[in-house]
């Protein structure tokens, strides 16, 4: 979104006449207004992000509101949170959500575990439905898969076929039927058996007790073909709207809240305790008690960590090794520890899970801590070689620290740095930092053409090559690359393509060259750069000089934008819905602002206790 001038003027800046000026001219003009230097600085920040890179900005910097704790008079463009708008902006949207692919699978697992208590049976069932679950479409363009609630015929068909596969697996074996329906299933005329099953299983499927009409309907389904009535029931129930969607009534009740809690914390249906609480209507106190209970469950720890990591950091989109590249092959063969490229990739992903598991649950870290620790978690020798450390045993009492000054938490994990190819791809790294950790949005470049007159020497470092192509004066690339993308990426140049710390870059012969895969030369690398960040405490935009990734990490954590971005991501993850452009400010601020020492666990707990999380919208959009 591009800021327009009128809104600035309305805020008292009186800067309309500067709109449309270049960054430099805007700065010169603004410099004359020393009495209002604070506001001028903020405008420069807006200019930089809102005009120079014409369609990009930090989404979080979406309005100007006071931020508690900062010096008097300082104002920060931040998430909008007008009290009068609070209600309609924060509540869940009116449309029910479709279970994501992963949630669909977990819900089936929990449903049948809840009924059968038989791990082997459930594992067998999950194997049966794996092909259909894998074929459920996942929208890959969205930031979080969660945000896609589209239902297509492909979804409908795969859900239907999965239901058939599950039902056939259960109904084809009498011992399995014993565990799901009870031994009474053998007597097809036992209507009490039928009705008990419908009510008991239906309650779990629909995540609430069935109405009498529903009971009647499922009785009809059974009677329509009594010889395989239970099988038919299973198929129909597992395809029903109450199972496939998180259907909420206009009046949200305890069961709706139980599902909101369970699909946040468990990524699945409510457990029995949530069901029990739901029956009582789920008061605010009960929600607090349930959140406290859930946060102590090992299954929540595992599922919440993984789902958050997957959605926030897009782990399912992790690059594959470009094994077609001779340089990549050469680099792989140069490593001492043998491992397949795919296994290396999976190990990097696993480390992200381990890192977040430890930081969030063991260390009870604050968001800032994610970027300020030197621990690494290489479970395998191939990853340990990248870090130059011993293999981590998996024991949190025996942590592995990277060599001094080499690592900055999440920012420098191998997964964050790895881009698949033989180059460090500073652009992609920069975009990743900007989008994942600052919630920045960038326009897609209009084209990839190299400006005329640019000479790219074979012995250019990746940084030199990137700068030559994207920072050429007079091109449209400059506005985004010079100020935003490249500096973030360049600050990570001390790490090679696979994430290994380095002082020099091995430059390979071009892939077109007869000597491709061989090193042309080694040149020293520089991670020194300068980024633009708003200094919220001083209320001005600052140019922050960086020497390395650790400096970048410090710059990120000392800036509220990164923390707010994380809070926004977590809140969206919890709601499973993306905030619209102007939404979310109140909720995110409420979650992230109470205390500077707030841990991530506290943040995760606080979200579900927000009034907006447990209330609903009526037709008129007013909370009830």
């Amino acid at each position, binding site marked *: 979104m*591009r800021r327009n001038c009128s809104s600035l003027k309305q805020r008292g800046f009186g800067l309309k006449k500067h709109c449309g000026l270049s960054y430099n001219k805007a700065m010169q003009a603004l410099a004359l207004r020393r009495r209002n230097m604070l506001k001028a600085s903020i405008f420069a920040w807006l200019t930089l992000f809102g*005009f*120079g890179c*014409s*369609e990009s900005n930090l989404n979080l910097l979406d309005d100007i509101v006071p931020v508690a704790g900062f010096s008097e008079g300082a104002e920060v463009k931040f998430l909008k949170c007008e009290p009068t708008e609070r209600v309609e902006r924060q509540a869940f*949207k*009116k*449309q*029910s959500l479709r279970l994501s692919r992963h949630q669909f699978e977990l819900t089936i697992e929990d449903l049948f575990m809840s009924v059968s208590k038989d791990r082997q049976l459930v594992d067998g069932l999950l194997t049966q439905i794996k092909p259909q679950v894998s074929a459920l479409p996942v929208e890959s*363009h969205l930031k979080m898969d969660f945000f896609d609630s*589209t*239902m*297509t*015929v*492909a*979804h*409908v068909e795969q859900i*239907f076929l999965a239901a*058939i596969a599950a039902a056939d697996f259960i109904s084809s074996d009498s011992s399995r039927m014993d565990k799901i329906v009870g031994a009474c299933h053998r007597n097809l005329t036992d209507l009490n058996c039928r009705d008990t099953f419908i009510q008991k299983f239906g309650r779990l499927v629909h995540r609430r007790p069935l*109405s*009498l*009409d*529903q009971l009647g*309907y499922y009785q009809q*389904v059974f009677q*329509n*073909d009594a010889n395989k009535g239970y099988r*038919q029931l299973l*198929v*129909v129930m597992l*395809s*029903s*709207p109450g199972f496939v969607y998180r*259907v*909420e009534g*206009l*009046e949200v*009740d305890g069961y709706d809240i139980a599902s909101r809690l369970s699909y946040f914390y468990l990524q699945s249906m409510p457990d029995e305790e949530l069901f029990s609480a739901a029956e009582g209507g789920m008061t605010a106190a009960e929600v607090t008690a349930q959140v406290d209970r859930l946060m102590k469950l090992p299954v929540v720890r595992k599922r919440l960590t993984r789902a958050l990591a997957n959605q926030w950091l897009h782990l399912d989109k992790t*690059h*594959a*090794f*470009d*094994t*077609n590249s001779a340089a990549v092959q050469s680099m792989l063969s140069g490593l001492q520890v043998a491992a397949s490229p795919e296994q290396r990739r999976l190990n990097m992903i696993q480390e992200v899970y381990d890192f977040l598991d430890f930081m969030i649950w063991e260390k009870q870290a604050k968001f800032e801590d994610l970027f300020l620790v030197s621990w690494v978690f290489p479970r395998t020798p191939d990853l340990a070689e990248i870090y130059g450390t011993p293999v981590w045993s998996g024991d949190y009492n025996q942590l592995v620290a990277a060599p001094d000054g080499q690592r900055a938490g999440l920012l420098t994990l191998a997964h964050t740095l790895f*881009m*698949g190819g033989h180059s460090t791809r500073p652009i*992609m790294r920069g975009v990743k930092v900007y989008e994942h950790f600052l919630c920045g949005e960038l*326009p*897609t*470049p*209009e*084209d*990839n*053409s190299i400006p005329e007159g640019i000479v790219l020497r074979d012995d250019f470092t990746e940084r030199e090559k990137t700068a030559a192509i994207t920072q050429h004066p*007079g*091109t*449209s690339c400059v506005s985004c690359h010079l100020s935003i993308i490249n500096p973030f990426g360049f600050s990570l140049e001390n790490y090679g393509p696979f994430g290994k710390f380095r002082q020099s870059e091995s430059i390979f012969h*071009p*892939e077109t060259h007869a000597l491709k895969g061989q090193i042309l030369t080694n040149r020293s690398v520089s991670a020194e750069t300068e980024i633009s960040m708003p200094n919220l405490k001083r209320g001005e935009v600052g140019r922050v000089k960086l020497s390395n990734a650790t400096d970048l990490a410090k710059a990120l954590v000392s800036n509220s934008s990164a923390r707010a971005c994380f809070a926004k991501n977590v809140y969206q993850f919890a709601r499973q819905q993306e905030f619209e452009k102007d939404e979310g400010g109140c909720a995110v601020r409420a979650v992230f602002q109470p205390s500077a020492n707030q841990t991530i666990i506290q943040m995760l707990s606080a979200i579900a206790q927000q009034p907006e999380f447990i209330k609903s919208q009526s*037709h008129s959009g007013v909370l009830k």
Partner: protein
Amino acid sequence: MKEDKLSRRHFLQGSSGLLVALPMLPSLLPRLARGQSVTLPKFMVIVGSEHGGTGARDWYPEGLGGVYSESILNQLSKRQLFSGTDAEGMNHEILHGRLRDFLSSQSGHPGGDVDSGQQRVSYILGAHLNPYIDSMNFYRGIDIGPEYAGHGVGVISGNMAAVANSATYRNLPKSPSLDYFLGQHEKFYGANSTHSVPRLFFGGRSLSYDLEGAPIGGLSANQMFTNLFSKYDKNPTKIALNNDRKLLVDHILQDYKNLTQGAYGLGRKISSEDKQKVENHVGLLADLQRKYVNTQSSCGDVVRQPAATTLEDQIQILVAAYTCGATRLGAIWAPIGSNHPNYHDSVAHSVNASEEIRMIHTNAFRWQSINVIQKLLDGLRNAPLAEGKSVFDQSLVYWMHESGVETHSGSSVNLVSFGNAGGALNTGYFVDYRNRSNRGHFKNQTGGHPGLLVNQWYATALHAMGLTKADYAHVSVGEQYGSVHHSNQWPRANAAYHGHMNHIPYPDRLYTAASNPLPIVVGE
């Protein structure tokens, strides 16, 4: 594994174990034509490709040298579309010439002498497509619109709102894809169509969008086979399976209807948005149910073997389906013709990194040109229809990329078409719709002039299929098919870098014309 076999007619042997029958069933024709003389049915295939960014050198006719020069332009016929020098812009003159005249046999291409010295249109549209030179049209100057619209998959098939990287376009009213729209239109299949699957689509990404503009997933060859031919299947086991599934879908449908009818209990009223969602789901279930309806009809001999999974299988299924009238609409998302593991980042978005990378990209499109386009055209041409004509003679096949010759450019999106759809289109042309007087366009690139809106291409395709403006004027806001991003504001904030000359790239007259088929190709 037991084969699903329907015997009575002759077979063609597929390469991957797929056998399909090809003769058109004359018995279908009366249903398709109710006049005294037989009106042959029409067919369409949309082929979409990821990216684009083919580069001018490898995509445009080599006879043009990759870029225009005045000497070449002088050889082309000119036609003035609009005149005037007022605020609406300046003279808009388009160019056209016979595509055959652009055939050349350039040597020294970095890709090597892949066509053995034969003349060809371009490196990508190589000599293998020469048999279609007179039934082909090559378009330049078909634009997505006034603003950058990256990764516009839906633009290829008519849904302007299905654009990944532009909120402006995503927020436009959604529209169905052309294949879906035609499949629902009584003028195409007739008011009482019995087509259980009015269209087919396959590939890794959907090009088909339903009436709500929601994507419809692609299909495997096996799924496609089932969709198209199961209604002709007399295998008792298959019939029993279908009946079972149809009954189950009936039950599920009722379950969804129960939700909207209050059967889920008092106090469980759902929002109007959710009711709409449920209705959409019911529609999807109805679509699904059609697959399980067995009929007593026959569609020739169609045999499925266990491993019908390849692109070639899919094309053969499409040809067989067209031939026997199981469907007449298709959309194909062409697979990338490269096994590079990081194609998106390391190739498609790095084409200028080196000539080698450029050629990986170029050859990926040439691969599609051979393995998708040529094979599809050959299949349709070899499929007899009636009266000595082939399915191809009644077809429009068009191939559009996400971008133009530069990646992420929606200016002059790459587009070629094949077939005259029973004489509805003039073919054999190279047409340049750009307004070369107008410099108000994306960057100061060679040949960077605004052309006509892509909606005129949709109108052209619909015209080819027998529809008129009145048939599609209701699809979106305005009379054109699909949405338009109506803006004559220019330049964008950073367009100062682009060398624009304060020209309005898309004056109102172009929006007014957006509902019309393309000149030169239609009419005369």
